[in-house]
């Protein structure tokens, strides 16, 4: 029999309020498996402010606090400082925010928190738009995507400009551990969470969390599309530990069309746009390979 590598204990119990096929729900379940029971989680306005449960219910077996949209970084700084002041040890402090709450409105508080060096794990579950408010573009939305505020139309008003690279922004803060992970690869995700747990200081994990509702695809496709994002190198899995890059999976690269074609949000893309998308991905992947090679050689 195959050996279970994923902890059996469930800290997220049935009854969450998310949509069918929610990648964000899977992400929380896996991350808590990695962190364990002694965890306090802070969540700003995002899908998870609803998923967690309507008063008086909760689907988590760890303390969770709701906080304002832009303050996740500050809120976890406060929790850690208070735990230190009260001499409470051996508790993980988890910041948990979406791409809007991390890349856009919460970037200042997060930047401040990681720069100050508090001991916490920050997870951005990236569904590439403001899904909780109804699929508006964020700076995490990929170029070319349809959202309700980039509605395409006759003028081709899709999302312009590349997705903000939050992982590199975190790496530039010189924090001890940064990683990407995907709900399509739970073992890799949990391994990274467990590793982060053992490191003192600020840790950042960027989790790819498909949203069938916003990506215009059937709920059953979430895991498949998450895997395809990795296999096409649209969302590479890697870690940066003390400045050294380590790519977790080096797939035999599939064409980007396989990833795009099952998502309604890209269906309007003309062929030249798809070609550009492929070129951008190839360039980014090459750059990542070089970064790994170079930083490992130092």
């Amino acid at each position, binding site marked *: 029999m195959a050996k279970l590598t994923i902890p059996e204990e469930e800290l997220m119990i049935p009854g969450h309020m998310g949509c069918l096929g929610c990648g964000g729900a899977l992400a929380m379940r896996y991350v808590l498996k990695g962190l364990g*029971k*002694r*965890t*306090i989680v*802070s969540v700003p306005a995002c899908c998870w*402010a*609803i998923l*967690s*449960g*309507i*008063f*008086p*219910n*909760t689907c*988590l*077996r*760890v*303390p*969770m*606090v*709701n*906080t*304002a949209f*832009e*303050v996740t*970084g*500050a*809120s*976890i*700084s*406060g*929790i850690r*400082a*208070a*735990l*230190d*002041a*009260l001499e409470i040890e051996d*508790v993980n402090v988890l910041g948990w925010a979406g791409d809007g709450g991390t890349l856009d409105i919460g970037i*200042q*508080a997060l*930047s*401040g928190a990681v*720069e*100050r060096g*508090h001991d916490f794990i920050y997870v951005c579950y990236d569904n590439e738009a403001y899904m909780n408010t109804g699929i508006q573009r964020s700076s995490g939305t990929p170029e070319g995507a349809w959202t309700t505020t980039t509605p395409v139309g006759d003028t081709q008003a899709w999302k312009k400009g590349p997705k903000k690279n939050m992982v590199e922004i975190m790496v530039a803060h010189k924090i001890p551990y940064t990683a990407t992970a995907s709900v399509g690869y739970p073992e890799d995700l949990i391994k990274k969470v467990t590793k982060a747990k053992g490191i003192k200081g600020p840790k950042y994990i960027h989790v790819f969390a498909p949203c069938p509702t916003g990506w215009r695809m059937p709920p059953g496709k979430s895991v498949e599309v998450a895997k395809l994002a990795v296999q096409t190198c649209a969302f590479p899995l890697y870690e940066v530990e003390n400045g050294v890059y380590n790519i977790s999976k080096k797939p035999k690269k599939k064409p980007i069309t396989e990833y795009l074609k099952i998502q309604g949000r890209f269906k309007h893309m003309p062929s030249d746009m798809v070609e550009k998308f492929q070129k951008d991905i190839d360039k980014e992947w090459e750059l990542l390979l070089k970064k790994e090679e170079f930083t490992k050689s130092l």
Partner: protein
Amino acid sequence: MVKKVITGNYASSYGAKLARAQVIAAYPITPQTSVVEKIAEFVASGEMEAQYIKVESEHSAMAACITASQTGARTFTATSAHGLTLMHEMLIWASGARTPVLMTNVNRAMAPPWSVWADHLDSVAQRDTGWIQYYCESNQEVLDTIITAYKVGESRDVLLPSFLTLDAFYLSHTYETVDIPDQDEVDKFLPSFDPPYKFDVEDPHLFGSLSFPHQFYMEWRYQISLSMEKAREKILETEAEFKKIFGRSHGGLLDTYRCDDAEVVLIAAGTMASTIREVVDWYRDKGVKVGLARLRVFRPFPVKEVRELAESVDVIGVLDRSYSFGYGGAFFAETAGALYNVPDKPLIKNYVVGIGGRDVTPDTVSGILNNAISLKDKGELDQEIEWIELKEGGD
């Protein structure tokens, strides 16, 4: 007990140290900065055992104080003007989360034009945030209020955040003699923070989750209102207890001076009260029956005290160091509101003074008193709201 000659800002730092604040989260802003600098010195020297988060904004300062408080730590921050108004969202969050965070606000004018001088708009604009608001007149009051305000805010009946304010430069940078109480005595007076609910991995709860209109949101807000009502008696009770141990108090919610038989009373907050006190004495020496009611607590508003005062008074002049564009200063509007349902109301006039740190001198106060006395004689108002000592061409 030790006597030190210190600024209002340092009195605030000493207050936070004596209260054993455990988590400080603060960001520099003129003229508050020396409050947090002094605390940084206390922490660096080991005199104060606290975690000090040097946040990247005031908004984050308040956010960090809130979760630190929810984790079970006593928290402190300090700010001014734009810092306070940047916090606005989190101020409402703090009372909603029932966290007794304590803050010093150095009252400073809002830009534009830039001004770093005394003005109450910053804190008055936070009226509806669910914070208890104290306005201080002396550096001693600043220190003492920090200690008493923690006790009020942290009491199980209240569980609300509080801020105290001191006027920019008039107190923040002015040296006065301040009694620094013994730590032992403060410890006896102020027990450690013991919230009924906190983050606990052994007893997990979800804090602040969504509540539908048919559920308990409205009742949650009503409970805050009840607690703010309870804060009235708690403030008085705590001050009385403080007086027993430390031998001084600062006048409860409405600090009255020579009001007993007064026909004309000025209501004012902050340092201008000291000037008014002096001028009231001059008028009293001449046999003119005037008095001062210093608005020490703006939230909860001293409705009962204002009504009692109004029973025997002919004219109340309310001095506002801020203005709500569209109708009057807030202290005036609240005073008038508190008296509307009372029979035999006095005349009430609003004097808008000292905006942007303009000095409120004894001459300014005399002019106001003379005007108020003339209203008593005429039995009617000349105008409801008057901006005092505007420069020529200012209109």
